[in-house]
């Protein structure tokens, strides 16, 4: 029995790597996605284009302006000299925000009356707008603290000391790149497995397999092995690149990480094989995999938090293996979580794996053609 499974697994690898197309699918998309995602996927704004409309010209206004100029994430595009220019520049997306300092700014400040500064933000990208808003508030708060301190004024003796655990500089690249391990593992594993049965059905070799003494369980193990091996290797590759190229810290233990990887890859193999056993042609399998992947990624919390989704959609995410895997990855990577914290993420993966693999094995013989 072992010899037969081994023969099947060896054949699967040969088929996979002798075919130029399959090699393409396994190697090219992950590399492209890794590079593009790794560099493109980030909510951080490090180049906020702004313009200053300084109608005051006093030294307090210059001081405030200097703080924006000195901030690494802000970039001055130019100075606005007339009111009409504000709308022009924002409309044309030349700047993301305009800071308008009123004509009595320095005078008001020195006189001890509130000195308003108008901040006009382009809200077309609401997420960017919100981040800009926070950044601007922080810079102005800093200015105020220094200004009052310099003049010996005192208000409430309370201040806010903020710290971020796990990611002190709040780099969203850490978040995305660790999530990328999950995304790429899923894509590659799905592609390897989703095509494997459908291709054989299309070529007629699946019937040939079924008339050999191989049992469905043996076929299942033989078919799952390449997906499992390639998925784990892919995950290892991406983990390596994430740590050594993108500099994401890996705080947790490799044991927990690989338990998670193994469970997830099994679940992905199960889903892939199930889609593949249902499909009659390569085309259907490809479409099926695509139709699974897109929602699976969107609902996984890869880019947007699951907690922000409505209740009904949140329930839907419970069937998404990527959801659990991303939590495991990010917890292990950034938080250094151990088994005791992650067991609730691991057992659903095991359940999904068992169910889908069983369904795939059953479909081998029972799907009518």
């Amino acid at each position, binding site marked *: 029995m072992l*010899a*037969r499974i*081994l*023969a*099947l697994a*060896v*054949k699967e690898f*040969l*088929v996979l790597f*002798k*075919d130029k197309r399959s090699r393409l699918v396994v190697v090219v998309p992950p590399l492209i996605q890794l590079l593009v995602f790794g560099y493109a996927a980030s909510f951080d704004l490090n180049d906020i284009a702004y313009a200053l409309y300084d109608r005051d010209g006093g030294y307090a206004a210059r001081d405030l302006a200097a703080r924006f100029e000195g901030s690494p994430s802000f970039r001055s595009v130019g100075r606005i000299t007339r009111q009409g220019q504000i709308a022009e520049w924002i409309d044309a997306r030349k700047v993301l925000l305009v800071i308008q300092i009123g004509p009595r700014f320095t005078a008001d400040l020195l006189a001890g009356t509130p000195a308003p500064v108008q901040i006009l933000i382009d809200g077309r990208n609401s997420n960017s707008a919100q981040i800009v808003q926070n950044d601007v508030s922080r810079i102005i708060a800093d200015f105020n603290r220094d200004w009052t301190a310099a003049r010996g004024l005192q208000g409430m003796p309370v201040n806010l000391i903020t710290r971020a655990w796990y990611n002190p500089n709040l780099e969203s690249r850490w978040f995305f790149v660790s999530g990328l391990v999950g995304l790429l593992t899923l894509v590659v594993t799905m592609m390897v497995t989703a095509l494997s049965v459908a291709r054989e059905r299309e*070529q*007629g*070799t699946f*019937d*040939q*397999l*079924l*008339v*050999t*003494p*191989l*049992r469905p369980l043996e076929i299942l193990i033989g078919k799952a092995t390449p997906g499992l091996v390639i998925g784990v290797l892919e995950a290892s590759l991406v983990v390596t690149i994430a740590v050594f190229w993108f500099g994401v810290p890996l705080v947790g233990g490799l044991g927990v990480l690989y338990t998670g990887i193994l469970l997830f890859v099994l679940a992905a193999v199960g889903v892939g094989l199930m889609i593949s056993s249902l499909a009659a042609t390569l085309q259907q399998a490809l479409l099926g995999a695509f139709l699974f992947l897109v929602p699976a990624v969107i609902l996984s919390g890869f880019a947007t938090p699951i907690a922000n989704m409505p209740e009904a959609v949140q329930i839907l995410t419970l069937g998404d293996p990527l959801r659990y895997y991303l939590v495991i990855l990010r917890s292990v990577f950034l938080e250094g979580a151990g088994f005791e914290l992650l067991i609730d993420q691991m057992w659903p993966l095991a359940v999904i794996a068992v169910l889908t693999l069983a369904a795939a094995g059953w479909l081998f013989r029972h799907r*009518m053609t």
Partner: protein
Amino acid sequence: MPVCPLRALDVHKSFSAGARSLCALDGVSLELRPGVVTGLIGPDGAGKTTFMRLAAGLLVPDAGRIQVLGLDASADSLAVQSRIGYMPQRFGLYEDLSVRENLDLYADLQGVSVAERPARHERLMEMTGLGPFGTRLAGQLSGGMKQKLGLACTLVNPPHLLLLDEPTVGVDPVSRRELWAIVDRLVAEEGMSLLLSTAYLDEAQRCADVVLIHQGRVIDQGPPARFSAPLRGRTFHVTGAPDGRRRLQARLAARPGVLDAVLQGDAVRVVMAEGIQPAADASEESVRWEPVEPRFADGFVALLSQGRDRIALPEIAAVSRASGDAIVTEGLTRRFGDFVAVDRLSVAVHAGEVFGLLGANGAGKTTTFRMLCGLLPPSEGRARVAGVDLRHAPAEARARIGYMSQRFSLYTNLSATQNLDFFARAYGLRGARARDRVAWALDAFGLAQLAGAESGSLPLGYKQRLAMAAALMHEPDILFLDEPTSGVDPLARREFWSRINALAEGGVTVLVTTHFMEEAEYCDRLAVMAAGEVLALGTPAEIKARAATPEVPRPDLEQAFITLIEAHA
């Protein structure tokens, strides 16, 4: 004097596949006679399809010229294309459009005016018999009907020249005969010129002219009689061997001076080399030699087998087999929705017998095969193979059967050796035993030279050998062959059947389906199926006798088959 429909002058064409360059046509010159059917005949890879595509203006020759209806096929391709009809091998139908919609599309494309359409349409429907199926989707038609629709689509605007690329591959004898009836009418009533490529040698006899091409060169051109005439006095029926026709055939084939020896009913048909007289061995006193009329096929084989190495037949050890019935079905039925694919099939196949299943496309042959092999559960009834139901039997029981499907299912991107190796191990062979079997297969099937080549790139004949070798790795007792010779050229078919003969002699039970009636003659017993039912069961001679009518007292198997099917419908 009408214009010459097609003239080729020293046409060369080669394709580059990776680093290799493949020469498809190597200086082909030929001329078609107007108003007749010309057959383009040759083995696989002879360049038939390439020539058709060049004539249709789909390819440009590397050197030489092709003139179609007086126009240059590559320079004036648009003008040529408005005057010819061309049916590619896969018929070129849109499967998700209905019969009517396919016809309308081609009428639009060919610029048939709206006024002319109803009359033309009616005529095509009458000719093809597709009238009642106007609204059916092309994808739901049977193979024979698809072929007729494909033909009708090329005829919406009556072409001056019709090019048909292997129109009869995988199509049953009834549909083939209907196609030929249409072709004959086109020539007689519309004066059309036709060029038709085919792998069926009996069809060559129906052509007015035959062009025989081989390895990209024209071997000869002329009426079919020209090919068979030189063989007069060299063809014989040999009968009366005491140890059975198969042994006799094997002995005759091995004899020097014998170009061809095939089974035909109870006799062996023998073609002798020129100048060699048949001499009965002293040991074979009972064997009678009876001269017969040569056919086109004899000429074809004689011409082409000269340069070809005769391969040694595989040594197949005669393992002692259980006697009795190898395959038994009782009331075997399979429904798909309302459609009854197989209807209460009850047959028994004896051990060591070559049993043929004949039937039109869609008669239920493949469904029967799939049920017997345990790939499809029957709706009713029972099927026992080697004493067990393969659907529920332990996996080891499947080790006793071999299965070769219609499409020569191989892992196309693995090499021949890798395919064989995998199947050997999947059947549980290991170590030295597996290596021995792979070596045996490469040797016995003449695959050794191509052992490292990707199986997908092999010529069809080699794919077929490889598929058969794969099905035989574990020396099964029972072999299932589903249309094992479809699309394979005549020489490869002969080799294939020699192997089947040797297997049967070794005691292996063979269940086979085929559309080639000459091949049906090789079987010990036949079952003729239509619409899921068995119409007749018996030896080829018995089947022929059953179909005898006062008009045709001694029908050949094809006539018998058609008579039976038509009597049923």
